[in-house]
C-alpha cells in the first residue's frame, strides 16, 4: 500500500541538506579510500606517459582495448541521467522528483570521465587540442570527415548542456543553502545562487527552462552515442562496419545508464537515509522501464547478430566465431548475455524483486558488468583478425596499467558524486516541496489514495 508522507519545508531542508551541513564518518572514510584509488590511477597515467603506450597491452593490430571500451561504457552511463531527467520532466511524471538531480550529476561526471579516456589513450596527452579547427602544427588541420573529430564536438555539446541543465535547476537550492549558511559560505552560495529570490516570474521561468532544456538535450542525447558508435560504424573493420550500431549503442547506453541510476538511487537511500524521498514505488517504476529498455536492447543485439549471419561475409563470420566459440571470448560472451539480460530481466518481472533494494542493486550492477563486457567484446575481437593487408596480428591482454586506470575511473565517478553531495543536495529541495504541495490524500470509500494535482 502506498502511504503519503507529509513533510514540512523545514523538515525537507534539514533532511536533504544534512550531508551538506554535516560530515559523517562513513563519508570521510569512503572519500579517502576512493581518493586513494584515484591517485593510484593518476600515477598509472603518469607512468604510462613517461614510459609510452608500450606499457599497455595494445599492439599493432589491436590498437583499441581497455581505454576505448571504458570510453564507450562511460558515455553510455552518461546517457541515462539526462534521459531520465528530461523525459520524466517532459511527461511530468511525478516519480521523477527524487531522481532528476542525482541522474543529471551522474551524467556530468561519467561524461567527464569518458572524455578523459581518449586523452589517456593518446599517449601524448598534451597534443589533445590538435582536434580543434586550427593549424597547430605543420599546416595540418583536423579531418572533418573523421568520427574522431565528430566525437569531441558531440561530447562537448552534451557535457556543456548537462552542466547547464544541472546548474539551472540547482539555483533555487543554492538559495536555500545561502539562507542557512553564515560567513564566507553565505557569500559563496549567494554568488552561486545569483541572489535568487523565488518570485513568481523566476519560478515560472525555472519551470519553462526545465522543459525547454529537456526538449533540447534529448536530441543531443540520441546523437552523442550515435556519433560514438560511428567511431566503429564508419570504419572497414569486420563486425564494426554495421549500420545497426547507432540505435544499438543508444539503446545499450540507456540500458546501462538507467541501471546505473537505479544503483545510485539505492545506494543514496541507504547511505543518506532518504526513506522519506526515495520509495519502493520509484524502484518499481524504473524496474518496469528497465524491462522494456533491456528487451529493446536485446532486439538490436539480435539484429547485429542476424545481419552478420545474413551477409555471410567471411571476415565478419570469423569474428563472430571467435566471440561465440573460442575461449576466453566465449566465456566473456556468455557472461555478458547472462548478466545483461538473462538473469536481471526475468527477475524484474516480479514486483517483489523490483521493490527489493538489495535485489535491485545486485541486478543493476550485473547489468553494468555485462554491458562493460559487451563493449569489450565489440572492440577487441574484431581487431584480432588477419585481414588482407595485415602483416601481423596478435591477441590482446590488458596490462596492470590499463586495469588500474580503468578501475580508477569507477572510483573517480563515485568520488566526484560524493564530493558533489558535500556541497549541493542530491535531491532537489524545491521539487520535493512542490511535490508535497501538489499531492494530497483523496478519500475513496474506506481508503485514502494519493492524488497529484497537475498544473496545465
Amino acid at each position: 500500500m502506498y502511504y503519503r508522507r507529509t513533510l514540512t519545508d523545514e523538515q525537507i531542508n534539514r533532511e536533504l541538506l544534512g550531508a551538506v551541513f554535516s560530515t559523517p564518518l562513513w563519508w570521510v572514510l569512503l572519500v579517502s579510500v576512493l581518493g586513494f584509488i584515484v591517485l593510484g590511477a593518476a600515477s598509472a597515467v603518469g607512468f604510462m606517459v613517461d614510459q609510452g603506450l608500450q606499457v599497455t597491452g595494445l599492439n599493432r593490430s589491436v590498437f583499441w582495448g581497455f581505454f576505448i571500451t571504458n570510453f564507450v561504457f562511460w558515455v553510455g552511463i552518461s546517457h541515462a541521467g539526462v534521459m531520465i531527467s528530461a523525459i520524466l520532466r517532459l511527461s511530468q511524471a511525478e516519480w521523477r522528483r527524487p531522481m532528476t538531480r542525482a541522474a543529471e550529476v551522474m551524467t556530468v561526471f561519467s561524461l567527464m570521465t569518458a572524455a578523459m579516456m581518449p586523452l589517456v589513450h593518446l599517449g601524448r596527452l598534451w597534443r589533445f587540442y590538435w582536434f580543434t579547427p586550427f593549424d597547430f602544427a605543420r599546416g595540418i588541420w583536423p579531418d572533418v570527415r573523421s568520427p574522431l573529430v565528430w566525437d569531441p564536438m558531440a561530447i562537448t555539446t552534451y557535457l556543456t548542456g548537462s552542466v547547464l541543465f544541472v546548474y539551472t535547476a540547482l539555483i533555487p537550492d543554492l538559495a536555500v543553502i545561502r539562507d542557512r549558511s553564515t560567513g564566507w559560505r553565505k557569500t559563496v552560495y549567494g554568488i552561486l545562487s545569483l541572489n535568487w529570490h523565488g518570485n513568481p516570474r523566476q519560478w515560472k521561468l525555472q519551470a519553462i527552462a526545465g522543459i525547454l532544456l529537456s526538449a533540447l538535450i534529448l536530441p543531443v542525447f540520441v546523437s552523442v552515442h550515435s556519433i560514438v558508435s560511428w567511431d566503429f560504424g564508419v570504419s572497414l573493420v569486420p563486425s564494426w562496419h554495421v549500420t545497426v550500431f547507432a540505435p544499438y549503442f543508444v539503446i545499450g547506453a540507456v540500458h546501462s545508464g538507467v541501471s546505473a541510476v537505479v544503483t545510485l538511487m539505492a545506494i543514496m537511500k541507504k547511505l543518506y537515509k532518504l526513506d522519506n524521498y526515495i520509495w519502493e514505488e520509484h524502484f518499481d517504476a524504473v524496474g518496469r522501464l528497465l524491462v522494456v529498455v533491456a528487451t529493446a536492447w536485446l532486439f538490436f543485439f539480435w539484429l547485429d547478430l542476424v545481419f552478420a549471419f545474413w551477409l555471410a561475409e567471411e571476415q565478419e563470420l570469423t569474428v563472430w566465431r571467435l566471440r561465440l566459440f573460442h575461449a576466453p571470448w566465449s566465456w566473456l560472451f556468455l557472461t555478458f548475455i547472462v548478466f545483461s539480460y538473462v538473469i536481471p530481466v526475468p527477475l524484474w518481472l516480479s514486483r517483489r524483486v523490483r521493490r527489493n533494494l538489495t535485489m535491485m542493486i545486485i541486478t543493476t550492477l550485473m547489468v553494468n558488468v555485462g554491458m562493460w563486457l559487451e563493449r569489450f567484446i565489440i572492440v577487441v575481437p574484431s581487431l584480432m583478425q588477419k585481414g588482407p593487408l595485415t602483416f601481423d596480428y596478435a591477441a590482446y591482454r590488458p596490462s596492470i596499467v590499463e586495469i588500474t586506470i580503468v578501475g580508477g575511473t569507477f572510483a573517480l565517478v563515485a568520488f566526484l558524486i560524493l564530493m558533489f553531495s558535500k556541497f549541493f543536495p542530491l535531491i532537489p529541495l524545491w521539487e520535493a516541496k512542490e511535490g508535497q504541495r501538489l499531492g494530497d490524500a483523496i478519500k475513496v470509500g474506506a481508503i485514502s489514495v494519493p492524488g497529484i494535482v497537475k498544473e496545465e
Partner: protein
Amino acid sequence: MHMKKLLGLFQDPEQVANAVTILKEDGFPGEDLDIYSGSPYPEGAFGEHEPGHRLYVFPFIGALVGFTLALLATAATQISYPLVTGGKPILSIPPMTIIVYEGTMLGALIFTVLGVLFESRLPKRNLGLYDTRITEGYIGLLVECPEEQLPKAEQLLHDAGAEDIKKEA
C-alpha cells in the same frame, strides 16, 4: 517621491492571496507588489500578474549562431587543408552536418540558459529586503510604495495576517 519597501511574512498562501487583493483594492499597484517563496506555487495562486516573457526567442537565436559558427568552422577547416580523396568533394556535406548539428544544439542550449537568467533578472546585485525564513516555508509579500504610504501598507499587511513585517533600512 521616495519609494520604500516593506516585506510581510506569511505562512498561509491564502493569507498572501488575500493580502494582495486588499492591497490592490486600496490603491497599491500590482507592479509594486512581489512575492517570494521557497518553492513554486501554481501560476496566479497569489493573484499576481506577471508580464510576458520572450524566452522562446533565445533558443532560436542561439541555434542560428551555433549553426553559423559550426558551418564556418567546418568549411574553413576543409578549405584550409583540403583532403583530396578520389574525386570526392572537398566540402563534404554529410560529415559537415554532424558537426553543424552539434554546434546548432550547443548554441541553442547556451542561449536558452542565458535567456532564462536574463528573463529572471538574474544575477541580482544584492538580496535587498529579504528574510531567510522564506526558504524555510514562509511566503514573503514585498510592497514598494511612497514613504508616506508605508504606515498604511504596514497596517494592511498586519490585518491580512502577516506574522512579521520587515522594513527597508
